[in-house]
């Protein structure tokens, strides 16, 4: 240890001597170049991280997220989809906006797999989200109601979502089918289920290091309007191309 200190001191002495030998102008120029570079880097990084422009498509497996993704990008669902094993990640101009002659800013959309085992992927993507679309299967809703409510609860109580007030759109998909439920029904059922979840999860709230945030107002039954971030409900159908509600949501929250 002492040796190293002595060596370091000798190096510092040598460096000082060398600096004294140089003409002063060169030193000033070098210092100025370094300072300007640092300033440039700082401003660039500040500008970049100001507004995230990622929209996250989430929801249970089988809800129609991948179909929705391809509808937004290409205007058609191609030959169909299977359960996703990985996320679909792309930056593109919305298909419906491609006909516009004016310059349209591309959106970055991430379609996260809905399978329960791939849940950690959602946690990676959420911090960068400017908006979250939660896709619900309106046709097969009742059997998956509990799981959907739990998933939605997890999203709504994530610290990053609440702090940045990320808006959430609950998109009721597959409304082109006859047996699909209405969005009002789905909204009410989800509120009821989340209410139940709220009670069972936060019964003991002295969890100190928690990623969860209290939802709603204690004592009152849960309502989406009680959330600090905006939660809206819309309906449509991914396979037929009826996705205007999602597109409006995207344009609203990602500057075009």
């Amino acid at each position: 240890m002492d040796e190293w200190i002595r060596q370091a001191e000798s190096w510092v002495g040598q460096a000082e001597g060398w600096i004294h030998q140089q003409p002063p102008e060169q030193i000033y120029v070098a210092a100025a170049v370094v300072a300007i570079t640092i300033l440039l880097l700082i401003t660039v990084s500040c500008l970049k991280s100001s507004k995230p422009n990622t929209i996250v498509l989430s929801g249970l497996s089988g809800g129609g997220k991948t179909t929705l993704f391809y509808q937004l990008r290409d205007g058609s669902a191609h030959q169909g989809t299977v359960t996703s094993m990985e996320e679909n990640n792309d930056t593109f101009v919305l298909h419906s906006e491609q006909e516009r002659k004016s310059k349209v800013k591309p959106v970055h959309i991430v379609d996260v797999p809905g399978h329960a085992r791939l849940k950690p992927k959602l946690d990676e993507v959420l911090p960068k989200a400017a908006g979250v679309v939660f896709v619900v299967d309106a046709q097969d809703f009742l059997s998956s109601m509990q799981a959907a409510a739990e998933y939605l609860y997890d999203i709504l109580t994530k610290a990053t979502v609440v702090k940045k007030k990320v808006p959430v759109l609950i998109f009721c998909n597959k409304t082109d089918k006859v047996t699909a439920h209405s969005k009002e029904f789905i909204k009410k059922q989800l509120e009821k289920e989340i209410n139940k979840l709220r009670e069972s999860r936060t019964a003991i709230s002295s969890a100190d290091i928690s990623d969860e945030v209290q939802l709603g107002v204690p004592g009152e039954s849960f309502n989406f309007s009680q959330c600090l971030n905006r939660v809206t409900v819309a309906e449509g159908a991914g396979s037929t191309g009826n996705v205007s509600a999602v597109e409006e949501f995207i344009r609203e929250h990602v500057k075009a």
Partner: protein
Amino acid sequence: MLEELLIFTRGGLILWALSGGGAQASPVDALIRSGLLEERPADGAGFSLDGKRALNWAFDNGLGLVFVAVYRRVLRLLYVDDLLAAVRAEFARVYNPKRTSYDGFGDVFRQLHLEAQARADEMNKFKQAPIKPRPPSPVPVPLSHNDVPKVPGDDGGNDGESQQGGSDGESGKEENSGDPEPKDGGAFNLGILHRLRIKVIPTKDINNVNGNKNNNKGRKKNKEKEGTHRKLDFSDPVDGGKVTDHVVVKKGVQGQSQVDTDENVGDGPKAEGWFSSVFQSIAGGNTVIGKSDLQPTLKALKDRLMTKKVAEEIAEKLCESVAASLEGKKLGSFTSISSTVQAAMEEAILRILTPGRSIDILRDVYAAKERERPYVIVFVGVNGVGKSTNLAKVAYWLLQHDLSVTLAACDTFRSGAVEQLRTHARRLQIPIFEKGYERDPAVVAKQAIQEATRTKSDVVLVDTAGRMQDNEPLMRALSKLINVNSPDLVVFVGEALVGNDAVDQLTQFNQKLADLSAVPAARLIDGILLSKFDTVDDKVGAALSMVYVSGAPIMFVGCGQSYTDLKKLNVKSIVNTLLK
């Protein structure tokens, strides 16, 4: 004939379908959900049964594509693997990430199909004895016919011996203590487990008939002995299953159950040797990963996993599965092979340990409450793993959430078991249903549940006797208990100290529960409670082995011997510890 051949991206978009209509997506969906996402297949190509259809699949890791062929199981088409490989090669030439429709591929495929069929016919002619189709009998089909099934019979033998030391001192009536029986000869069949979980009726086990005979002899001898001894057992004779009243015992402040505290875990260990890996990777920018490149890293990882007490077969299978998923992939710039492999392994373990369904017990309890039924949890496991202790911890936790709990003493075998539960019940001030010793546990459980329904109790925790996994009569009794009472949750208590035996325990438990059940829809293990976690510092591999083998999530972790020492599994910290 092939029913369907799908080519799709890992993100889920179908690029080309033989039937053109995408109508047959459901067996493929089931395959993805149950098979591919659980890291079960050992090779890149695999073969799985799904009711009437068989599926073969292949990966192209470089492009991120999956090829799946579906055909009727009765037609044992032998050329499918060959065809898949050919299709993979051809499609890789045509593939373009921007394109989403490949209509021209239909002709190419037809050509390839004919060629593959021709090759298979030729091979048939060369072989003297024709390839007999495997008899559609209850012989379990291995999950991948490319795999050479290892012989865990040896493993089983060794584990049997080590188990003797570990089992409780149950003298006299101890069954099967003498012989470490060879396990049913044949491969360690993940295929069986897989089928069990799809609830197909598996076959009966014809083995272990000897075990039965030994048991009967042992029991008879003992009964003769007892008569001659003085009465040493002064446990209170219990009369008729009345629910004992609460004895007013001052309930000390125990503190809070640790289940509800969250733990924050940072990221895992960064790749070591930053400098060396940087220099390596600058050299290898765009190389494609080959099998030989992966071997040394994978071997090192496998050894590391085994030092963390992951069962050997599990570590092997996991490494093979990671190798299959990385072969053919392009190395990113500025990454070395070891860091890529490490990342892939980390992701695979994370995926296995993340529960595949919700494990929120409180929510299920509330749901049962609405239906005016108690929520029944049965604790099963081998001897001495900590069922009774952890049952008390779970009861404590439930009490803290303002639920009313009843204990059911269905361990009518071990001396002192009923008293132990009685003591817990007194300390926690909750009712206990007991009928003493030498009763049929299934009947005791049934009466306990009826009593709980009458007293409007929210949860019933059923304690059962510890039993070895290869003890047929005891497993039969357990199966009867579970089927008669149809509990809401069957929790397998496994200790974290166990190494390779965890694999055997869980496989056998599940298999016996399925085989010996009288009803077609057998109940299997729904969740795992990992006990004695505080005794292993960082050798946490048992968690991975158990989850991999059974597919059941770890619901609780017991980390101590007092009431508050019950936690939820922190997946990230286990992953970090395993790969440190």
